[in-house]
């Protein structure tokens, strides 16, 4: 068990070091997220009375698209020069590889989410002051399940052959329950001033648990060519 944790931190450290060295992923993904917020801001006529309760729509759109790009790039590091085969040859459990990648993805998504949310608050004058922690909590929880399926499918779906967008295609429909639940929860909190309600939270948590476990199990199966 300690060995696994050691290996996970070794792998995550390697990923973050590569990221720091190349700065490829974070920069691109953050900028994409901000761009999406800007496009939506312009398109929705933000601050001209058109945006209103568009907060979750804007943020989820930005998170989903930049998230998918993020997953593609972190797995792309392993695809180049078949580095993944090097990992598979080592005495490392496949689930260790999965969790390490998941943690890397979550860390990067956190950076992106912070910047994108800040941009949203700025451009749309979103008022999160009523319940900032509940907002952060709901979105972060949703991020976990999303990253789990994203990590799983980024290992199977290769976008190297002019088929960019395949990962997005795969992951988006799966993530829709997250969008619905978090939106409904946030509507209840911010628009109706109520408590978020057990159902939405239950769905998000169920999503996380089911997809964490499913991705963990399936990761090993899909890695065996």
């Amino acid at each position: 068990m300690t060995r696994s944790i050691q290996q996970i931190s070794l792998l995550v450290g390697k990923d973050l070091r590569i990221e720091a060295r190349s700065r490829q992923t974070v920069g691109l993904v953050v900028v994409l997220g901000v761009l999406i917020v800007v496009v939506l801001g312009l398109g929705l006529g933000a601050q001209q009375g058109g945006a209103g309760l568009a907060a979750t729509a804007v943020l989820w759109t930005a998170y989903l698209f930049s998230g998918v790009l993020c997953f593609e790039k972190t797995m792309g590091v392993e695809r180049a020069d078949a580095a993944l085969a090097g990992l598979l040859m080592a005495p490392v459990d496949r689930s260790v590889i999965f969790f390490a990648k998941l943690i890397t993805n979550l860390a990067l998504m956190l950076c992106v989410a912070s910047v994108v949310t800040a941009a949203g608050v700025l451009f749309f004058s979103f008022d999160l002051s009523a319940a900032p922690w509940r907002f952060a909590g709901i979105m972060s929880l949703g991020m976990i399940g999303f990253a789990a399926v994203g990590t799983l499918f980024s290992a199977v779906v290769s976008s190297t052959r002019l088929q960019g967008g395949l990962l997005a295609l795969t992951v988006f429909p799966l993530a829709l329950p997250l969008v619905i639940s978090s939106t409904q929860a946030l509507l209840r909190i911010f628009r109706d001033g109520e408590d978020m309600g057990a159902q939405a939270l239950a769905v998000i948590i169920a999503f996380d648990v089911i997809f964490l476990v499913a991705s963990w199990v399936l990761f090993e199966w899909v890695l065996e060519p």
Partner: protein
Amino acid sequence: MKTPGKMVIAIYWALTAGLLGAAVVLALLYAPTEETMGPVQKIFYLHLPSAINTFLAFMTVFIASIGYLVQRKSWWDDLASAAAKTGVFFCSIVLLTGMIWGKIAWGSWWTWSPRLTFSLLLWLLYVVYLLIRSSVDSEQRKGMVSAAYGIVAFLDVPLVYLSARMLPDIHPQSITLAPEMKMTLGFWFLPITLLNAGLIVTMYWVHAKRRANRNVTETEAPRAMNLELLGKGT
């Protein structure tokens, strides 16, 4: 699975068509018209059996996907894609009948009601399954990705259902069914389910045959070149 004789196939489809015809007659003539909603309610006889069969088809995709992942035998994959295509077909019917009902009963083609949203999301989930299959070139990859997605998508279905239920339902529907209506509804399940099974099996054979043909044609060409045809001094 060997292709059964042409006789059997013909009888099967004749039976299905006959039952479908009888079902339509029952729905139009035998079942009474519901008071509040009028004749459009009869679309329900098509809607509900299609919905159940959609679910059955997608469950088949789930099981076949697991089968493929565990056994790696290509017939699981053929079954999964056959069931997915059939499922999308029936899901389209569910979606369309739902929309028609909504338009006639309440005047708009679309509302984000729990039922319609659920149908739409389900439809999207499995249309994407088909799109993924057509986007991945390598046969082996295709099987793996489809199987993984087929499993995860089915696990997503209850979550989609639960989250769709959180949406506001402007037109809640509760239909009380008279005994004749129940009978008609029950009868409709026969042709629809036969259609479902028949389509899945037919598509399965089509896929299996296509795969067999493909394996025959992909071999390496003879290695030696015919250099003497270049002639002298080329």
